[in-house]
């Protein structure tokens, strides 16, 4: 097994990977940019290396610096997490060239699937149905030609990556040019490639994806599906396993699973990966793309299958064969995950960085929390606003929803805006409970939804608490507060105590 593993990432996923590595008895090495010096992944890791200099936002993309840190710390494997360098074939190749195992697929597989247009071609060759779209990056001219042929709406997508970055829905020809420009610019910032391709947009379709897992000896299984239809700005916010649609039509799991395995095999794939499908209202499914890395929403699969995907990733990278066959994989109960973001859902989901002043976390039966937040931590404005993933498990979807509502009620994050209250409204929505899910769900939700009216006494209690708090604030002297917040070291520097 590996001597030491570096995690080329930050935030909750770095913490998740550190936990898995620690449970395997392997020392972990974190990397960090300056705004992340006191981030949880740095505090939790056994070792930590600053990756600098350069703009903070780009530190986690510096292949050279990360490999320097790996060598300095005597690391023999690197876990890339998701985002950043995780789908960068050059990085995978550079790791292997440096004699360091890349915990993921081969550089060749990343190339075959990492480019979304190349992936479409691979999927077509493997016999998977695809949505009408371009197999090459578009120019503004070829984009106009595609829209003229297939009609609107269309969806612009980044060739080089996923996660909603560089994605734009376009409903009319007049908007094509600005959408193309915006998408290319966003893709360039996110993936260092402005290339865009286009697909016909399927209205009211569901996003259902298959988790696959393959070893380096040719064995491959699927671990079932995840339903990720609840999205805002083309980014998933609630994920479930199993998909309620697949629960009603169990044959879909096998069919989509086999299609996913065929596509992955065509790319010579090993390690963990996800094949994403769109499913239309007639339950026909279409290959969307393959993510050649661990997925943000992997916990719901772990909760239902009982498998530890990160541990398995590491074992596979170390050359171990899969420890089970397809028919040994069992799905039990239902899991739901909410992505807790620092954002204001009632103001267009605008991100909201800042300092966490107060934190109460849900716990008890069936709760899994993967986060990177602690009281006093300042959420940096340089990175994604994902604070934590709150996942629940229960024996049925209905019970899981009730448990999630209970957990959301226990969860309090002070000092910034979060989407906690928004999730509670979604989870209590009759359409969500009836599993009428599609990728336009949130837009429609906002159109038909009126925010819940709080019970009358809630306002009375809020007024009382505010009045008592205001009175207490007035009474606590400014001097006391100032003494409390001044850095003793600054004071020390002045009065020379340190000499």
């Amino acid at each position: 097994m590996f001597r030491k593993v570096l995690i080329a990432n930050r935030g909750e996923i770095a913490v998740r990977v550190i936990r898995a590595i620690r449970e395997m008895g392997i020392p972990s090495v974190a990397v960090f940019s300056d705004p992340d010096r006191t981030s949880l992944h740095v505090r939790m890791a056994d070792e930590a290396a600053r990756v600098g200099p350069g703009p903070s936002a780009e530190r986690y993309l510096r292949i050279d610096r990360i490999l320097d840190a790996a060598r300095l710390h005597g690391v023999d494997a690197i876990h890339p997490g998701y985002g950043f360098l995780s789908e960068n074939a050059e990085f995978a190749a550079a790791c292997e060239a440096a004699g360091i195992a890349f915990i993921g697929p081969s550089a060749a597989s990343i190339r075959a699937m990492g480019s979304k247009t190349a992936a479409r071609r691979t999927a077509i060759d493997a016999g998977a149905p695809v949505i009408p779209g371009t197999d090459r990056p578009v120019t503004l001219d070829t984009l106009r030609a595609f829209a003229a042929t297939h009609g609107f709406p269309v969806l612009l997508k980044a060739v080089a990556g996923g996660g909603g970055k560089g994605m734009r829905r376009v409903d009319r020809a007049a908007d094509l040019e600005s959408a193309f420009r915006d998408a290319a610019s966003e893709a360039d910032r996110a993936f260092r490639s402005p290339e865009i391709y286009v697909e016909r947009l399927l209205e009211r379709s569901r996003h259902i994806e298959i988790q696959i897992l393959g070893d380096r000896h040719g064995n491959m299984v699927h671990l079932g599906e995840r339903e990720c239809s609840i999205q805002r700005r083309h980014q998933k916010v609630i994920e479930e396993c199993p998909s309620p649609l697949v629960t009603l039509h169990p044959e879909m799991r096998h069919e989509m699973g086999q299609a996913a395995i065929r596509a992955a095999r065509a790319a010579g794939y090993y390690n963990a990966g996800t094949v994403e499908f769109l499913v239309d209202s007639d339950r026909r499914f279409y290959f969307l793309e393959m993510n050649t890395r661990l997925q943000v929403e992997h916990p719901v699969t772990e909760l239902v299958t009982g498998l530890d995907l990160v541990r398995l990733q590491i074992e596979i990278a170390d050359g171990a064969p899969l420890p089970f066959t397809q028919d040994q994989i069992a799905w039990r109960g239902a899991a739901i995950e909410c992505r807790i973001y620092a954002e204001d859902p009632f103001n267009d989901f605008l991100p909201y960085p800042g300092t966490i002043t107060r934190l109460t976390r849900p716990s008890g039966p069936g709760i899994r929390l993967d986060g990177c937040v602690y009281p006093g931590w300042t959420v940096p404005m340089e990175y994604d606003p994902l604070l934590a993933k709150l996942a629940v498990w229960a024996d049925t979807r209905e019970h899981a929803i009730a448990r999630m509502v209970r957990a959301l009620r226990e969860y309090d994050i002070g000092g910034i805006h979060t989407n906690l209250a928004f999730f509670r409204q979604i989870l209590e929505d009759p359409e969500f409970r009836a599993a009428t899910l599609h990728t336009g769900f949130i837009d429609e939700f906002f159109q038909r939804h009126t925010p819940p009216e709080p019970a009358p006494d809630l306002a009375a209690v809020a007024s009382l608490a505010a009045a008592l708090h205001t009175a207490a604030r007035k009474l606590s002297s400014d001097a006391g507060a100032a003494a409390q917040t001044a850095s003793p070291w600054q004071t020390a520097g002045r009065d020379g105590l340190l000499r």
Partner: protein
Amino acid sequence: MKLALTIDGRADTIEILSPAPASRFQLGDAPPRLANVETPEPGVYSVLLDGCSYDAFVEDTPAGPVVTIEGHRFEIDARDPRRWSRKTAGTGSDTVQSILSPMPGKVVRVLAAPGDEVVPGQGIVVVEAMKMQNELKSNRAGRVLSVPAKEGATVAAGELLATIGVA
């Protein structure tokens, strides 16, 4: 102690007749009520009122205290009526449109300069936070009066980025 407060847009007054823990209080003209109030953690108020138990989380913002109870967020404007003063007139009016930053972030592009004529929907300033760019647009036609926003500067939520004289 008596406070005037605006809770979710509705004006009211609250008078604290006796302090915590056995707190008597009066909302507007309603009969006084008795609550048992403890502060288990700073900014957290455990309130027992008519047999019900509430955990109220209070935080201070520049606009006043924000209270969260059971996931409901109450934005409260609380003032001591003895020191009552009208809020100073804001930067908004019928003839001047203020572009405010809707989130904490960094100004990454300034798209208009003082004196420029702008049309409805025209981008004025781009603010970025957490890998998301937000283009702030004029919602009316007019002429740019001022652009305090500077490229590269960090701005707070609610900070003034530009003003536009409406045509």
